[in-house]
Structures are given as C-alpha cells and as structure tokens.
C-alpha cells in the first residue's frame, strides 16, 4: 500500500511540472465549479470575491507558501478540475477552519476542501485508502501534538524550560514505533 501512495504522490508531482504557462479555459472544465457547489461542503464556493483572507489566516500557508486557498478557489472557479483534483495541495489542509471563520462571504473553504477530497476519491484521482492514510496522519499528528504539549506541561510543573524542537525527537520516535508495531500487528 505504501508503495502505491508514493507512486501517486510522484505522479502528482510529475504532472504538476508539466503545467503550461497559459491556462486555456477552452480546455478546462467550466462545469467544475457547479460540480463542487453540488458536493456537500462546496455549496458556497462561487460566492468567493477573492479577498484573500483565507490565505492570510491559513496556518498551513504560513509553513508552505505554495498552499494558497484563494488560488485553489480561483482554480476551481476557472474549471481547472484536473489540476485541482490531482494536486497534492488539496490534502494539505488541516481543517482548522480559520478560513471559514474569517471569510466575509461565508465560503467555508475548509468544507470545500473536504468536498474536493471526496470528488478526488470518487473520480479515481486517489485510491480510497489514501484518505484513510491522511486521516491516520491527522490522528497521529494530534497524538504527537498532545504528547508534546503534555511534556511541556509536565516540565512546567517541574519548573524546567523546554524547547519545542528538542521535543520532536523525544516524542516522534515512540509514536513512530507504536505506528510500526500497529502496522506489524495488522500483518
């Protein structure tokens, strides 16, 4: 399964590099925005007036500027279906819903992301197990985060200072071991 995921990701990256400089809307799927709007979560996609507050407030785009919600919306509205659904960007959203909170037009971008993921799975852009994996990643991420926070709290009561960076190796390793163990268990 892991190999399949890697293959998919590589495929997405390769295709991404093949992008043409000019977007010809005649070649794009102009019905795509309506499709997204019909998918649960995507209802308000068309209301976007591109103010950029989603991008401004997005914690993912803080880390990776490539991840730009406004740009993704624009691509949807222009009908760039294939490019959107096969893009690795749609999997990056952490579903924190900050964008939805600040959006003046009530677009609910985080929900749009879920809609896109559903379509992507349904239409075979990714294997269903891919979403499962993502969901697992989300779970482990939360686990890691929780452990790190607990570790800080613990050290706080002992009045010890702690650096977030150092915690990573401390916390991530056991989690990875646990994940591996679980994986083995399944086999």
């Amino acid at each position, binding site marked *: 399964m892991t190999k399949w995921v890697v293959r998919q990701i590589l495929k997405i990256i390769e295709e991404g590099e093949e992008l043409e*400089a*000019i*977007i*010809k*809307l*005649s070649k794009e799927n*102009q019905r795509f*925005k*309506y499709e997204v709007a019909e998918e649960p979560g995507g209802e308000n996609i*068309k*209301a*976007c*007036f*591109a*103010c*950029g*507050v989603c*991008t*401004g*407030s997005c914690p993912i*785009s*803080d880390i990776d*500027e490539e991840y*730009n919600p*406004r*740009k993704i919306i*624009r*691509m949807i*509205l*222009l009908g760039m279906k294939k490019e959107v659904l096969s893009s690795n960007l749609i999997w990056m959203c952490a579903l924190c819903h*900050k964008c939805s909170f*600040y959006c*003046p*037009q*009530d677009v609910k971008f985080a929900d749009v992301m879920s809609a896109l993921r559903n379509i992507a799975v349904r239409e075979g852009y990714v294997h269903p197990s891919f979403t499962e994996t993502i969901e697992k990643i989300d779970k482990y991420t939360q686990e890691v985060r929780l452990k790190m926070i607990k570790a800080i709290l613990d050290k706080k009561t002992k009045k010890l200072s702690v650096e977030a960076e150092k915690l990573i190796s401390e916390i991530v390793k056991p989690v990875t071991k646990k994940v591996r163990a679980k994986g083995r268990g399944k086999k």
Partner: protein
Amino acid sequence: MNKGFDSQKIGSVLVVGGGIAGIQSALDLAEQGYYVYLVEKSPAIGGVMAQLDKTFPTNDCSMCILAPKLVECGRHLNIETMTWSEVLDVSGEEGNFKVKVKKKARYIDLNKCTGCGECTDVCPVEIESEFDERLVNKKAIFRPFPQAYPNAFTIEKDIRPCQIACPAGVHVQGYIALIKQKKYEEALSLIKKNNPLPAICGRICPHPCEAECRRRLVDEPVAINSLKRFITDYEMQRSDDRGQTTEVRSQRSEELVTHKVAIIGSGPAGLSCAYYLSQQGYKVTIFEALPVLGGMLRVGIPEYRLPKDILNKEIESILNLGVEVKTNVKIGKDLTMGNIFKQGYKAIFIGTGAHRSLKLNIPNEDSKGVVPGIDFLRDLNLGKKVKVGKNVVIIGGGNVAIDTARSSLRLGAEKVTILYRRSRKEMPASPGEVEEAEKEGVKIKFLVAPVEVLTRNNKVVSLRCIKMQLGAPDASGRRRPIPISGSEFNLSIDMIIPAIGQAPDTSYFKEYGIGVAKRRTIQIDEDTLLTSKDGVFAGGDTVLGPATAVEAIAQGRKAAQSIIAYIKGRKAAQSIIAYIKGEKEVELQAKKDYGELPPNTPLKKRQKIKTLPVGARKSNFKEVELGLTEKQALKEAERCLSCGICSECLQCEEACKAEAIVHQDIDKIIELDVGSIILAPGFDEFDPTSLYEYGYKKYKNVVTSIEFERILSATGPYQGEVIRPSDRKIPERIAFIQCVGSRDEKTNPYCSSVCCTYAIKEAIIAREHTAGKIEATIFFMDLRCYGKNFDKYYERAKDEYKVKFVRSKIYKIEELNGTGDLSIIYAKEDGKKCTERFDLVILSVGFQPPVDAVNLARKVGLNLNKYNFIQTRDFEPVKTSKEGIYVCGAFSGPKDIPETVMQASGAAAEASCLLSDVRGTQIKEKVYPPEIDVTGQEPRIGVFICHCGINIGGYVDVPKVTEFAKTLPNVIYAENNLYTCSQDTQERIKEMIKEHNLNRVVVASCSPSTHEPLFQETIREAGLNKYLFEMANIRNQCSWVHMDEPEKATEKAKDLVKMAIAKARLIESLKELELDLTKSALVIGGGISGMTATLNLAKQGFKVYLIEKNSELGGIARRIKWTNEGLNVQNYLKSLIDKVTNNKNIEIITEATIVEVSGYVGNFKTGFMRAGRGYVEEINSGVIIVAAGAKEYKPDEYMYGQDDRVITQLELEEKLLTPHSAFRIPQSVVMIQCVGSRNGERPYCSRFCCMQAVKNALKIKEISPDTEIYILYRDIRTYGFNEDYYREAREKGIMFIRYDEEKKPVISHQSLNVKIYDEILGREIEIPADLIVLSVGVEPYQENKELATLLKVPLNEDNFFLEAHVKLRPVDFATEGIFVCGLCHSPKSIEESIAQAQAAASRATTILAKDKILTAGIISHIDEELCAGCKICVNICPYEAIEFDETKKVSRVNEALCKGCGTCAAACPSGACTALGFKYEQISSQISAALV
C-alpha cells in the same frame, strides 16, 4: 398659484433629523413658503458632518462649510428647530399628519442661555463625550461643539436613587461630587438646602439613601452618611479655627418679610421649620416645654452617639439666623394656642414629637425598678442622676432599647439583657448599633416576651417571661410572634427598662379643636402639613408617630414652604400646593427605571470607619464612631458611580449669571400638525467591538475612522495633533482596514459606499498634519472611488502623498507586547504572506440604519429593506411606502454628502409638490417699522460692550473700555452688559436707540459670523438700516487669546473698539433692492433628469419650457432596458413622456438649440433656434435648469467597430431589448470594465458600469443559464445595496477576474479569445469568447462647452458641468438662478439622476416661490467716471456679475448677481470699484484708528 383653502392640507413640514440632510430640506422648504419643524435628537443640529475634520475630495474644512448653514437654518424665521427632541408617533395621512414630539428636559432655558460656558467650568461631573467619540470626557452640562446651534448648553441627567430615597431629598450625589473636588464648603451649603442639621444626621440617620445606592449592585453602597458627617465635621472644625459660626450665608434672603411664626417644639421638625422660615426673613419664635432645645435629638439619644457640642453647634447656627427661643413653656399649660395668635403670630407649627412611653400592659409594671426607656434617656440627657441596677433587662427591639442598654452598661450595670419577642431579622434597630451593643457586652434574648413583673416590697426582683414562636406575617409584614404555652420561665433581675415604643401627647391640641387620628397623631393635609385649624401646621413625630429625624427635618422644611405660601395669602391647601409647585421644585419622580450601570465597573472597597475601642467605652459617654478622615472621604467619594449623571450639585446655578439653569425642567410632549414629513435621521456607525479579532476597545491604538476623524480635527480631543491614544506619540506608520462592518455576510453584506474615499482623505490629512511624517497604508478589497473627481483624488493619494494601497482583507490585528504597536499579517495577491507593524490602525467602519429611526419607521408602518434601511424604488428615490412621507440621506442607503444633499432637496421638492396648494399659509412674516433716513445726520453712535459673563469680563476690564468708548468722538452713549446678546439686552439696545436718537450702533463682543445678524435685526426693529451696525470681536480675538495678560487685553479691547467706532462714523445705510421675477423655468435637456425637474415644477404650478435638441424626449434612457433593481425603464419613460406632454404648464420645444442667454436670476432671456427655422425665438424664465445629459463613450480599442462580436453594454441592452431579434445569446461572454474610463484621457470613473455589467450579466444568465460570463475588472464598484447583485452574480457562476491597468486584456483577432493575466494564479488565462461586451461609461457632450459659455457657468476639466460646491451645493451654480442635474453633472444611475433632478427643481422653487428677488446690500459699485474700461473686473468676477457697456466703454455691476465679495474692488487699477460697506475710507479709518 391656487392658494385655495378647500383642501385639508397643512402648509408645514416636519423634518426628522438635523444633520446636513435635514438642514438642507428645512432650508429649501422654508424658502419655498412652508413652515418647517426640524426635530433633532441631540442637543445641536449638524449631525455627523459637524464631527468631520475635512471633506473629500476637496479637503474643505467640514465645519467651515457647515457652520454658515447651521446659522442660516437656526435663525430662519420659518424653521422651528427642536433639538434634544424625538418624534414619538405619527398619525394621519398625506397633507395632514399629526406628530407627537417629545422635547426632552434640557434643564436650560434656551431663551436665556448665551452659551458663555461658565457652567461647564464649575460642573464636577465628567462623562464621555459622544461628539468626540468617547476619546475624551465632557461635563454633565455641555455643548457638543463650539459652533453648535442652538448655542446653548444641555444637562444630561438621570434619576438619582439616593436623592429619591432621602426623605429630605438631600442632593446626595451633588455633595459627593463636590467632595471629590474638595469643595467642602459648597457641599455643606448644598446639603443645607434640604437639611439644616447635617452633622446630627451624619451621626444618627438610618440613611435610607445607602439602601438604594446603586453602588451596592457592584459591591457595597457608598458610605453616604459618613461622607455627610465628614463635610460637616470638617467645616465645623474650620469655622471653629476661624472663630466664626458654622452657618453658611443664606440664599436669597433679601426678601425680608416681617411676619411672625410660632413654632411649638424644638426637635428636628421645629428646628428645620425655623431654619427655612428665618432664611426667608420671617420672624420665628420657638416655644419649648423642656429647659433645653433639641427635642428627641437631645433627650432621646445618648451622647456617645450624638455629642452635645455637635448638637449645640448646629442648633446655635439656626438660632443665629435670628430665631427667638422660649424654653420651659408648655403649650396648654403655660400658654394657649389662642394666645399665640393674639400675640400677632400669623401661623403656628406644631412639632412636639412623641415623648410618651407605651406601656407593657403586664402586672406590676409600675413597681419600683421599672423605668421606661424614654424617661431613662431623658433623665440621663438632662444631667439628672440616673441609677441603674446590677442586672438590667430591657424590653424591646428598637434603637431606644439599644440606646438604653448601652447607656446602662456605661452607667455601671453588670449585666444587661435585651428581650425581644421576635427574631434578629425583625429587629427595627440599626444593625450597626446592635453589633456595637453586643460587642460592648449586651446580651439579646430573642423570641422572649415579658408576662409579669415579680416584686418583693414593690421592688422588682424578677421578670416572668414566655418563649415565643413566629407565625404568619402581620400588618407590618413581619412575622407575628405567638407565645408557646407552658414555656414560661423567670429571669432574676433588679431593673426593667421597657422600650417598646412611644407616642405623641396631643391631648391639648385635641381640646383646642385640632383633628387627631387614632394613634393620637395630629391629622394633617399630606401635601401642605396644614392641620384642620386655619394657620396651624404640624410635622415630625407629632404627625408621623415615632419616626426618624430626617423625616422630621423634611416635614419641617415642607411646613416652612407651606407657611410662607399661607402667609402670602394662599389660605386653602390646594392653593398652597399650587404655590409651592410653581415657586419651588417639582417633586422627584419615584420611578426606578434607572439607566444601565457602566459595564466592568472596577470594585472598590467601602472605607472602614474608625470606632472607639470597646475597652475605652466603659463608664464614659465618649463618641463611639470617629468618622472618616479626609483621605478616606476622598476615596469613598470616588466610589460614587454618578449614576444620575448630573449630580444636582447646583454649582451651575451659582455660576450662571444669565439665570438660565432650570433643574426642575421636565420632558414635554407636544403635538404638531404638518402636511408632510421628511425623514433625515442619518446613520449609525458600525460598532466593531463584536469583531474581536480586530481588538477594538481591547487595544488602545485601534480606533474607528470616525474616532480618527476627531483625532485629526483641530477641535478634537488632541487639538488636531495626530497622536495615538495609548501614549500620545505621533504615529509614524498607520494602517486603514477597509470594509469593517461592510461587504461581510456576518455583519452587513452591503457596501457602505463612502469608506474608501474617506480613508484616502484621512490618510492624506494625517500626512498633511504631520508634514509627511506619517506613512499610511490602506488595506482594501476593491477601491470604490466612484464619485465625481474621486479617482483623481485616489491617484493623488498614491502619487503625491505616497499612500500605500494593499489589496488584501485583514483578518486580525495583534498588539505587540507592551509597545502599543500593532501587527498585521496578510496575504498579497500572489499569495505571499507579509507581516507589518503599525503604530495606529484605523478601522473604516460602515453605516447602519439608525436604531431610533428604524423603530419610528416601523411604528409608522414604512417599508424597510432587509437591512432595515427605508425601502425606496429606483424611480422614486426619496419616496417611502407611505404617501406624504419622504426620506433622504443615509437612511435609505449609505451615501456621501452630495447625494445626501441632493436627496434632501429632492425630498423637499416632493413635499413642496404635494403641498403647493397651501404654500405660504403657515409661514411667519416679520414686519419692520419704516426705516429712519439718517443721510446727512451727524453720527450718533451707541456702543454696547459685552462682559460675556466672565469670558470677556474675567480678563478685560470692560467698564474701563466702556468709559474709554464714551470719550471717543460721536459716541453719544456707551454701556456694558453682562451678555449683550441676551433677549433683555436687545430690548435695551432698542430703547437706547430711541432715547438717545442713535443712528449707528457698535457692539463689542464675540464673532460677527454668529452674532452680527442678531444685532442687525435688533437695530432694524428700532428703525435703523441694518448696515448702520459695526462689530468688534473682543472675545475670540482678545480676551481668549490674552488670558494671561489682562492689562494688555484691556488695551487691545480699547483699540478694537476704537477701530469699530472709527468705521462706524463712516458707515451708511445700504439698500437691498427688490426686483421682479418671471415665475417660469427653462429646462435644457429632455432626458429623464430634465423631464423629472420639469414635471415637478409644473406640478407646483410653475410654467416650464423644456428644450430638447433631439426630435424625441427620453435621452440616453431610451437605450436602457432595466434599472439596477430590474424595473422596466421603457415603460417608465413612456409614462413620464406622457405626463410631460399632457401637462398644461409645460411647453416642449424639440429639435432646438440654444443660441444666446442673457439676464440674471429671476429674469433670464434665452434665445433658441429650432431645426429648419431660420430665426431666433426667445424664452423668459426666472430660472434655468441644465439637464443636458451625456453620451456613451465610443471606444476605439478592443476591436470595437472592427468585429460585430464586440459591442458596448448599451448595445447589448438594445439587442436584448428588441423583441424577436435575431440576436442569440452565445455560449461564452466576456465583459471588459473601465473601457475608456479611469485612464489618462478620461481619468474619471463612470460609476454605473460595474453595476450595468452585473445587471446585464444577470439578465443573460436569466435568459440563458448555460452561458458562461467573464467580467474583467479593475475594481468592482457595486456600491451600496448593489453589492447584493454582485454577490448574486457570483453565485450564478459569473466569473470576475481582475486586471491591472498596465496589463489590460488582449483580444486575439481571429478567435476572439481574450487573454488576461490573473494576479492570483500568476499566470495568463485565455478565455474563449463568442461575444465581448465593453463597459464604456459615459462621456460629456462636446456642446457643453458652448452651453457653458452662453450660461456663463463653468465646466470641470472632464467637460462635466461644475457645481457651486461639490459637497453642499451639488445642483447649484455659483451663478444664481441656474441649476444642474443628471449626467451632464457627472456619471450616475437613473435613481441618482432622478434625485438630482428633483433637487434642481427644489432649488429652483426657492426662487420661483417668491414674489420678489431681494439683492444683497453689500455689493460692488462702479464709478463710471473713474472706470477706465480695462475689463479686469469683468474677467475676475467669480459670479459673472459685471457686464461691460460697449457704448459707454465702462463696466457695470449687475446688482442681482453681485455677492459683494470685493474681488473687483481689490483688482480695479483705477479705484472705480468699491465694495459697499467696505469702502476705502471706511477701512483706512479703522487702520488709522489702530495706529494712532
């Protein structure tokens, strides 16, 4: 005109809201012959415009352009301005409405208040200033801004619960406010207005005030009683130190009355009555049965609670007023009532108290060792030897019981027990007293009652008691004690003190024939305290039964008032009440619907009062409570929440020399009859507190745009210095965040229309104020500078002022720890994230409908839109859903000042149309006496010099200036006045003119711009020509600026007066000419605007000539299918043309060109030629309205004209409009915005094209849902409620893509594909297009130039007609009598064109409704002898008022057009031009006077 009275219509109009819209409507209507009621809820007219620093795009000072309107409106004979008032209800129908208006109590007499401001200086209460957006405080007595009309103060007042709770109505909050300012003497004198025994009450009063104190809702009540004691103790100590009596000088005791009044009893009631009577000069004698004065105060209260020296001092201070005292005189025994009257006393007050103990009614209670509490205390206090037992039992639960118990301990009793038949909860004694008693060792047994006194040798040995339990509540509301049978027990004791109550002894008075009630109290009339006997009054415990001292004091004071009324001849109770109410004060309303408490009031602990240690209290009667220290008192006073706002400290009454303060004022409800109503209530600002991510109110340096406007303003909180609130530093980097509370589904989805341009203005002004130190950034989504010349303003902001514009919506503002600086994170269009630090962030807040007005509209049943603004329709922009009620300004949607003013005039035009039958029926006309001819008379000058309270008088020696004035030549009379502008001084000026035959008047006071018209009117009323007046400003230009140098100020005032007198010697009567006028109008242009104006005027009964250059009426609207709202334009146009064609007052002239225009306001002659006729025809008209329209721009770009598939928006509408046309909507449509607009050639925005594109795109989607539409834009400018259509368009799938001016879309020739660079994707997009629609905007006609030359009116650089003032005179030209409306003024929507056309009609009506044209008195005069014919004046005159006489070769002033600006006089090289009233010799005489 038909002035028939057959209709029920009323020729007056109600205008709701005194902002610029209301002012404009009111002025128009008043000038058109209607009486106007202008109702404004705040204390002054002016609205939000008065708060603004500058106006865009001209950066005019807002107040400078508004203030003259305020004065004009305020002084207009036919406008009744009702400020501090609100409309409660409206009934009736068009032509005849009944309106209920509440005039809120202002507590100031508007006729007396001169606006001098001395009251604010002494007011101790500060509240947030709404005018200054709560950035600073104002006083509880305030005037919102210095230029306010009316120029009067207002007191903001709520209910003061402490004062209501006090039986004597003491001004509690007032004296606390004065304590805060350490004004102890004033505080004491304030208390004494209601209570002459404050030192006593400060010790023994059960202080019901504290029970009501609203501080208790926060933590604990304010220690009011202790504060009162503090003041009196402090002042007593001070006067002891000075060796003077404590009595503060009495108020208004000049009115000496010699009538005698007898007072029986010297307790608190009698003393209080004596005090207030003697204060008024009455001769008072007190008859007292005991050898000492004070009644219960002396004999009923032990000294450890009320020291005798305090009591003596306070009584003494009353006696010092001249009160006679006769002690040891018992009425009924030593003297009879009849005898008292025989001795010449006019009235008697009975205040004999309640000194008779109640009996226990148990066996053996008369035995030895049983001493009633009252007797015990009396003997003790009279200094008799009082013996106590070792084991004392006291029966009762009141203060007397506690007093006797504590006294017994002090006298040596070993064991003191109080028996009380109920529980602690029911005990009537003060809890504090009970607590102290227990501390001292007193035991209290609850639920025990005595049954029998057991004696041995008639001496008490024990008390048989029974235990009780509590049953159901009795009449007093307390639970009734019921004996528990069989629970009897014996208490071994040697003394019993029953203290179960006392009653008055009124047996003698009953004999005398005075009505006595069941409980032996004297019956009185409650309002007057009059007994059943004529001239006999009673109060205190005699009437109430045992009660508190403060109640007795209150009654004593009330009796004094009644007695005065009685002696003055009001014999019956009713007439006494009427007298007291009329002369004295209105009873406080005992309602409890108090205002809201300020949220988050910080907790403050109540000050602990020091007491004598318990150990130090044994065997002495030293005072136990020690009172507050000054430090404590000041801290305690700070705890007062000032919940009543005005504290009624009455300091303003003292300060107001004009006697304008009316603290007894009440709200009044009046009813008005009006024919029509105009709603102009303005808007509310959006409150951004709910958007907590912006940190408004959390971070000090996040302010709203209107707050920033105040910060910028010279009259604002920081006097115009641009500083930030947190640390008063000049901010270097400021940011504006747009669309706060606008274009947001979570707050207000509509666009607030004005914020973009006002943000630009504020950025520019901030830079100007700081010499460019401020770097301003504006964060926006679409920049909506769609108004006339706004885009140029935007470009200037970018280029000249280096304002940074960032297209990004901001989601959050964070404060950087401790610095007050703010951080903003945002994404640029390409997705790059940026963090920037700012010193100050301004939130550009949007508009909301005003809450009060929404409620009123609902009550009246007016249709509101979904955002609660008044619903109007595109073709009826000022009409509400109810006939006869009109709306203007922001209440029908967010809008800028010019549109507001246009609608205001438009609403006036509609109201005038409705009421034209009854025009002139309600107006007032002033009749003046004939003018005295003073020509040739030697000047006889009267000089009136104003103190302006202390404004001038405090710094300038006004009497000295007056004496100086008297020495000047031609000065016949000079005097100084407290306020020269007051109503009585106006009468005096008139009298003096008559008495001394004055023929010139000089007033030395304040600013002529506000006060000159008043004085001019006064002298005119006395028969003098109003120009025989001269004014010197010795306040603004002298006393105010030389406060620190009074001597120099006096010298300067002399000089200023001397200059004014020098000129006055040379001034002459000036004539205001009356000219006839032609009551008809010429309207140029037959489009919607022209026809609208025409029809309005014709309906009002005026003859109208409508000239149209084409063969058909309709103008550009003939090509428009729908309005924004979706209404059918062609149907509307047809009905409009029908109405215009069929109106008998309208003459339509088509295919005609204007060839010449001559004349002036009231009498224009216009020559025109019709097509095919070779001669010139002429129209005479009083006014001309220019509605010449504009045309669609014909593009030469984007392949227009080369490819049929490239069309304009209007062409698209025409295609869609034509029925059964071959046109089929294709699959893909691309619309390109700003074609030919906002570029170098046409730098203006065509305003409506964004909406036009949205409208047409939506129409296409409606017909052909599968068509894909792309709108390529630079900024989407769907302002106001049009934002809804923009959202609808997006939701329908219409795609909006922005492009930069430098990267315009490119159309490929063959395929018609459109290439556009998308900033968001950072890539080029190619859009397949089957049809390209260009939004081309409008272009003015070339012919405008010729027309403007003929009319002598200006065009702007874009060839649109240029109005007189972009903000406040949007349809007038500087040349009087000519007006402009519609597209020839600037691009606008149909709705806006209609409103402007109505406005033009309104402005025209202000001229046509009159019978004569009155010219100005101060105009230019040209001496033909001196004129060299150089024509400089002709070219320089801004009003086109100078013509050149080609035959005589001289210039001539057209008196009807001249505004007296004096430009020609200054420019004329030969000295032929003179500005009358400012002649060369007049000015030079002033200058010489200053120099000599």
